């Protein structure tokens, strides 16, 4: 029973990270209706920036917000320079551009910081919290930071007029333009925020998986699984989906003998396929019905 509880809790901790990645994916999907394959690499690059800032002597809690801001700017720049010019291009163009972004960012990180694995500090420490070491301090920190971020996002989207404008631009761009919303900039803002959310995920998971250019690959897949499970049209669903994926992954790895640690990743892929076959709109997504 204690093992079970521990698995669930650490699943939630990992799930919090998947939830962030899923949320970043959904935010961009809502704005441009394409899946950003480079989301993980963007987060990885952000994490390297944080690492570099700390190498230069900055304390963690200074590097953390600065990285978020830099990542936000980076996201906006990527949207303006790369994505905006292809906004009306077909889906394959987007796929190719995202793959290109993925490769470019990955190689750039390798070129600048090389491919050796680097330790990344945790600001929370590794001492166990909650009796009997059910959860480490870093895991608790991951959950707490994610929760704080989610609450901030919720407040932003629900109670600010920019948040309202972003929701309107995503839901009905034509109508949004007619009330004077600059839809293009809302998309850029969405990219900036997705990039910032991703950077938080990267900085939180880096102490666990260690810092290297390929660190986000599996996490991106889990994030995709979470986003698909929750529904690509629902930010709340993405968060829920991410957490569920974290828990399922952990439990399956421990309790299903053939799965073990090696076959955890296929579980995520299996989940994606299962959801797409059984309930393509996901747990909380809207089904879109189109008249033809």
């Amino acid at each position: 029973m204690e093992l079970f509880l521990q698995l669930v809790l650490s699943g939630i901790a990992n799930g919090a990270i998947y939830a962030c990645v899923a949320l970043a994916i959904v935010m961009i999907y809502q704005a441009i209706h394409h899946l950003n394959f480079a989301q993980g690499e963007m987060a990885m690059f952000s994490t390297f920036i944080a690492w570099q800032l700390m190498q230069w002597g900055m304390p963690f809690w200074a590097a953390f917000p600065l990285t978020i801001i830099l990542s936000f700017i980076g996201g906006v720049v990527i949207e303006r320079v790369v994505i905006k010019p292809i906004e009306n291009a077909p889906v394959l163009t987007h796929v190719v551009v995202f793959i290109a972004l993925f490769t470019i960012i990955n190689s750039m990180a390798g070129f600048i910081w090389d491919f050796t694995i680097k330790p990344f500090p945790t600001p929370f420490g590794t001492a166990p919290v909650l009796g009997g070491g059910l959860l480490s301090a870093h895991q608790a920190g991951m959950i707490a930071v994610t929760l704080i971020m989610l609450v901030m996002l919720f407040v932003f989207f629900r109670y600010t007029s920019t948040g309202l404008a972003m929701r309107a631009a995503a839901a009905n761009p034509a109508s949004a333009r007619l009330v004077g919303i600059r839809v293009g900039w809302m998309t850029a803002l969405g990219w900036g925020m997705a990039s910032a959310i991703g950077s938080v995920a990267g900085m939180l998971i880096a102490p666990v998986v260690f810092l290297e250019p390929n660190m986000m690959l599996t996490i991106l897949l889990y994030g995709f699984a979470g986003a698909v499970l929750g529904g690509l049209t629902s930010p709340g669903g993405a968060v829920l989906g991410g957490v569920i994926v974290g828990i399922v992954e952990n439990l399956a790895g421990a309790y299903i003998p053939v799965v073990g640690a090696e076959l955890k990743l296929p579980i995520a892929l299996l989940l994606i396929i299962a959801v797409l076959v059984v309930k393509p709109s996901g747990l909380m997504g809207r089904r879109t019905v189109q008249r033809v």
Partner: protein
Amino acid sequence: MSALLEVHNLKAGYGPIEVLHGIDFRLPLGGVATLLGANGAGKTTTLRALCGMVRASGDIMFEGKPIGGRSTEDIARLGVAHVPEGRGTFTQLTVEENLKLGAISRSDKRAVAEDMERCFSYFPILKQRITQQAGLLSGGEQQMLAVARGLMLRPRMMLLDEPSFGLAPLIVRELFQILATINRAEKVSMLIVEQNASLALELADEAYLLETGNIVLSGSAKEISADESIRQSYLGY
């Protein structure tokens, strides 16, 4: 009366297909003009061209300044409220959020709250529905919401695309009475596209008749509705 909107040789279309073949019309300041015509005549395209939503050429002068070639959002910010075909409701958002969105380009928050109250005085039903998801409103309520959303911009000019579409006759009557009140009380000039010609002619000062992308007839609304032969051959009532 000086013209709020003056359009000269407006051509517009979709892709390679030209829908409007160079039309001229004007909307007097504080007045109501109506564009009449059958399906596919180019009425909706005209409104879209005015708002930069389709490829267009020609002169569009709004308050004496050319607005042709400007972006849709910039034109809206000049005080042009376009109530589009299909109402353009933000269906997943609440009624209140829809109304707030109408005023999203404005910075005078206190006046926005007052304007929302004024919208409720025109359309009391919206106040009852304020927390509901807008997509769950009836067709008539959604049309009222669309007009109210346009009004929240404090527009100089409203472009209304078939406000009567899909509504019960009684609701249409009510809506047009409210539009007449808004025109007088808020000094909002209106350009109304309608298939329901008799109704539009009652409200309008001037009327233009579109046929396959050309204006074939124009004049005061009174003259046109009084002319038996025009009515029978073009307006079908």
